[in-house]
């Protein structure tokens, strides 16, 4: 028991919490905006069946960021560059799901390998290295905050502009194309937006755990609603609660932020899945037409 309590003490220490909060103001702002970005892009990741692509892009984003670290240039810019290259390559290599998945499977280890190489060559602080893989948001400086907010704003503006046609093209590509929508152009536009969103998320939860921010919240929401309004709202709510909750919990503990973010978003998913499953059972047992087949004949 002693060791358990000791470990608890080691992880959590909420003394001086108020003073610490002031230090992470930037992180809280960035975390909220990233929740918004991750929750909204996630909706299309779910609709377009792209979780594997998200993982692949985040590995190349990691390679870009570690290259930037090695060269001593802007890490956010590096991870954005890696992301965009990966997003465009995946978009160009695989229009069909099968092609796409093998293209990602090829790109992913390549990106991770490059990243490992750059980090091995890097002589700086080792915390910087670990952070790229598993996340570090606490103590984001002002210029980095500015960068991230600007890129987030760009993502949100583009998403708002293409939201409806992108939904149409995602759910019903054949008819969207027949109606004259630029289905391919929309797909490329979304891959670029996704690349940016992933590069931002890498800064918070790290390359290995991006899925928890860009996929899990939307996947959770899609379990309980198909409404075009509720789905993005819930997804954003889950993502924001996960990032902000993660930051606030990490603040009083010695553990990095990512396990909190991943656990919170996983819990949302688990609960939504249960609710969704219960509803589906209800639908199946309920009579399709009131008054017909509603009576259960017991022997």
């Amino acid at each position, binding site marked *: 028991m002693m060791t358990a309590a000791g470990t608890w003490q080691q992880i959590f220490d909420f003394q001086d919490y108020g003073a610490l909060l002031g230090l992470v103001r930037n992180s809280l702002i960035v975390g909220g905006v990233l929740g918004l970005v991750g929750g909204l892009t996630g909706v299309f990741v*779910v*609709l377009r069946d792209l979780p594997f692509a998200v993982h692949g892009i985040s590995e190349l984003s990691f390679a870009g960021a570690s290259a930037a670290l090695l060269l001593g240039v802007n890490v956010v810019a590096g991870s954005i560059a890696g992301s965009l290259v990966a997003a465009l390559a995946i978009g160009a290599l695989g229009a069909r799901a099968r092609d796409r998945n093998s293209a990602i499977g090829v790109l992913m280890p390549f990106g991770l390998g490059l990243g490992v190489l750059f980090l091995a060559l890097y002589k700086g602080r080792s915390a910087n290295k670990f952070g790229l893989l598993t996340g570090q948001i606490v103590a984001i400086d002002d210029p980095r905050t500015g960068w991230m907010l600007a890129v987030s704003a760009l993502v949100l503006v583009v998403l708002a502009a293409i939201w409806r046609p992108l939904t149409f093209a995602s759910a019903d590509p054949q008819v969207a194309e027949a109606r004259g929508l630029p289905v391919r152009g929309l797909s490329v536009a979304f891959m670029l937006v996704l690349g940016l969103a992933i590069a931002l998320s890498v800064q918070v939860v790290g390359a290995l755990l991006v899925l928890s921010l860009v996929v899990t919240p939307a996947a959770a929401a899609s379990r309980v609603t198909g409404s075009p309004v509720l789905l993005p709202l819930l997804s954003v709510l889950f993502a924001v609660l996960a990032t902000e909750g993660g930051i606030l919990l990490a603040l009083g503990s010695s553990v990095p932020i990512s396990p909190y973010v991943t656990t919170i978003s996983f819990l949302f998913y688990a609960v939504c899945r249960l609710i969704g499953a219960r509803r589906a059972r209800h639908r199946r047992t309920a009579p399709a037409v009131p008054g017909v087949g509603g009576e259960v004949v017991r022997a």
Partner: protein
Amino acid sequence: MTGETPPSVPGPRAGDADVPGRQAPLIRMTNGGLRYGDRILWKGLDLDVRPGEFWAVLGPNGSGKSSLVQALLGRRPLTFGSLRVLGADPRRAARHIGYVPQQGTAPAHDVVRARELVGYGLDGHRFGLRLGLRGRGAATRHRIDAVLEAVGASAYANAPLGTLSGGERQRVRIGQALATDPRVLLCDEPTLSLDLHHQRAVTELIDRRRRDHGTAVVFVTHEINPVLDLVDQVLYLAPHGHRIGPPEEVLTSRSLSALYGSRVDVLRVRGRIVVVGAHDQQPVHHPGPDAEHARETDGARP
């Protein structure tokens, strides 16, 4: 645009018995042809599809049926000849055409509800956000409800598309195509792999539409029998040319034997048509976008 020629005004032309009182065609193709690389899918096609007419497009795999639909939608420019849809360039008319594709699913169908699919037909092409917590405005929502009611899909309006049967999904698709009050309805094998009962239900919806609203219907199909009593004109695309006319003229042993260049027997049994010989032949293999399409649909056919 290779298919673009001086704008053709709908009206009488040589060889066309334009009976006074007949309405101007909604689709007019003059000497149309389509080529992939060095392979000509079809050529010399003259079509006049008028309001309220039901056209069936028949032919073996790879004969260019789906390519014809793509051309009518303005997705694929003609190699030869000219095409006007609703008196305009087909690409500009595409938004005013109802299009019903083959039934199929997308990953998004696990999430997207039936009513959304109809909604896309109304406003899915618009860029920019619509604001407001309830999403679409009341008028649009009522329109979606009315359309779903009209095609008998109200009971599953809020169910995810993925939970519907093929027949239910096609009802919703027809609702989507009709939501904008189109003057032309293009159906690309909408009844493929549906059972007889649902084939009937789907074709009846389409038939009612053209009778009540004078919508012209172009219906690509492999199976003429479910629509035989509805069809005004048949366009039969085949390896050795094509034929246009009422079903009793086109679907004869003589005409199909000529189209296939081999012996084909057409039998009439209890109001149904049975074609022997034509479908036994292997689908023509050809490169180009249609090849993949033809392969996909092969598996679904008995």
